[in-house]
């Protein structure tokens, strides 16, 4: 186990080296946009981009954990909507703010753990289990609200998205906090090591005494809980929780994760890369808006960037390997 730990650590270093590729992609994008428009590289716009990236970036952290284990979580967008409306109803019943937040995170965690149980105990492929949850959570959210958005919250709650600390939006601070914690968990804890081990070779992890079921379920729980956290920010931002919120977020989160260098085959990836991936997506959307590019062209550009990013990443890995 110790030898494996050292080997994994060496892997991390080579990962950081690879992230330079993704990072220079982001910087290149920034430079291009800076050259094209005076409105892009300003302090207020960069904070604007960070704010817009925050929700997908937080969801993508959970996605990164899941994908590192070799799984996938298609339910994140629906779980976000469900956690959002449950919390919104709680807020309308005047529960204290911390309780409402616990409700959002708890609802997400619960859905995630159900995913985990279906995958580990029920032996369902993650794709199927979370595809089912995607529909169940969405339908439950719609039933729960009779299809209508739940809106209008106190200023205290809304400050979770609209507030600023030293000029930095609270949502951005939450995002950074999530990434710091996730990075530490992934690199410094047993849970993190086992996450890589399960994705690298599940059989080997099992044989070396890892309780694969528990750790796998925990990873899906984390993904659900972070969807709940993203729901808090989205609801506070729009002053409304919609049962149809978060549609297609799973695809944005997967895109951010793979652009960040996480392999869909499992066993490798970092949250730092995912953050860069989420920022690339947000910068791209922001830049194309600012340049006044039509929404049709935007979709083509975003799709091409995802493909190019992964192509380059694979090419670099082949060269390094």
């Amino acid at each position, binding site marked *: 186990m110790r030898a494996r730990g050292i080997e994994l650590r060496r892997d991390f270093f080579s990962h950081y080296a690879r992230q*330079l590729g993704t990072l*220079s992609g982001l910087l290149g994008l920034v430079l291009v946009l800076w050259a094209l428009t005076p409105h892009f590289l300003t302090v207020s716009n960069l904070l604007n981009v960070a704010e817009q990236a925050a929700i997908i970036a937080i969801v993508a952290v959970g996605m990164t954990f899941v994908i590192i284990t070799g799984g996938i979580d298609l339910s994140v967008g629906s779980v976000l909507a469900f956690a959002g409306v449950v919390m919104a109803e709680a807020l309308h019943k005047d529960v204290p703010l911390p309780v409402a937040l616990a409700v959002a995170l708890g609802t997400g965690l619960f859905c995630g753990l159900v995913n985990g149980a279906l995958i580990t105990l029920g032996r369902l492929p993650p794709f199927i289990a979370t595809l089912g949850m995607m529909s169940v959570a969405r339908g439950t959210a719609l039933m729960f609200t009779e299809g209508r958005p739940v809106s*209008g919250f106190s200023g205290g709650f809304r400050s979770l998205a609209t507030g600023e600390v030293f000029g930095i939006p609270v949502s951005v601070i939450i995002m950074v906090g999530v990434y710091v914690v996730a990075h530490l968990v992934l690199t410094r804890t047993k849970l993190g090591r086992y996450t890589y081990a399960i994705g690298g070779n599940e059989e080997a992890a099992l044989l070396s005494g890892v309780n694969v079921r528990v750790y796998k379920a925990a990873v899906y729980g984390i993904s659900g809980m972070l969807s709940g956290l993203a729901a808090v920010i989205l609801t506070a931002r729009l002053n409304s929780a*919609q049962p149809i919120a978060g549609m297609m977020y799973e695809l944005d989160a997967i895109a951010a994760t793979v652009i960040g260098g996480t392999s869909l085959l499992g066993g490798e990836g970092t949250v730092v890369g995912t953050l860069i991936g989420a920022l690339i997506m947000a910068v791209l*959307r922001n830049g194309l808006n600012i340049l006044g590019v039509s929404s049709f062209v935007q979709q083509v550009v975003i799709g091409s960037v995802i493909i190019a990013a992964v192509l380059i990443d694979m090419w670099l890995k082949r060269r390094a390997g």
Partner: protein
Amino acid sequence: MKKVLVLLLLAALSLSLTNCQRGGEPAGGGRQRIALVMKTANNPFFIEMQKGAEEAAKRLNVELVVQAAEREVDVEKQMQIVENLIQTRVAALCVTPSGSREIVPAIDKANKANIPVVIVDTRVDAKALSESGGKVATFIGSDNYEGGKIAGEFLAKKLGGKGKVAVLEGIPGHETGDSRLRGFREALKATPGVEIVASQTANWERDQGFNVFQNILQSHPDVQAVFACSDLMALGAVEAIASAKKTGQITVVGFDATSEARGAITDGKMEASVAQSPAQMGALAVENAVKLLKGEQVNAEFVVPIKLITKENAGQ
């Protein structure tokens, strides 16, 4: 490698600060820049609106930026678009809200940046707006409630005051669809013989209009008419009727009077559609935005007239 990148970033950042100072001058050769943010750019209704707005912009010599989310109901994406346009310092902002309440934080942000906001097509929730203290310069749209009522009255008369009707609703909680539905139901109250036997959402989508109406036909084979809250859903129902070989037996009334729906009306596959003149809305939005920028007073509201398109006037 790393050092070079850091240097580049620093250089870019320091230059950006100078950009901060010199920003604000209108781009595009001194012409004023007006933005139109629509719900989506791939629905015939909004394509018409964009055309109307573009023509008006050309006529008034202003630069028009049109942006839209990929999906009509994506309130968060619409918010991002508005935020990004505020960053480019557009002179005025015309918006068709994807969510009547969810748009309010975006309006607040535009207010803060001193950008006048013109609301088009879908009304902002008055309560949410007053709670946030947001300000809207003017509203341009047609009365969807009235449109639904016209459709209901027409259908009741067409059925001779007696019959079974199905309804295809828009996305629940969507102001536009909800008002059309309320108007329609109100009109039918006057004729108790006309009964709504099924009322289901098809989420504004054509394919769902097809499937949902096909299902309704299974459970209510004797349904005589269908009112769809949009033409896309109505055209879906028309296909479902055709595949059930019942074309001509079921009266279809839609909403929006898109060119395809007009064609279906001429062909006798659809009975009528409520016309809203989106092109006129787009033009009025730009015209009023220009007036606001000149400091002129504008009305708090412009109601674009609604009319019913039937076989007699479908070709116009």
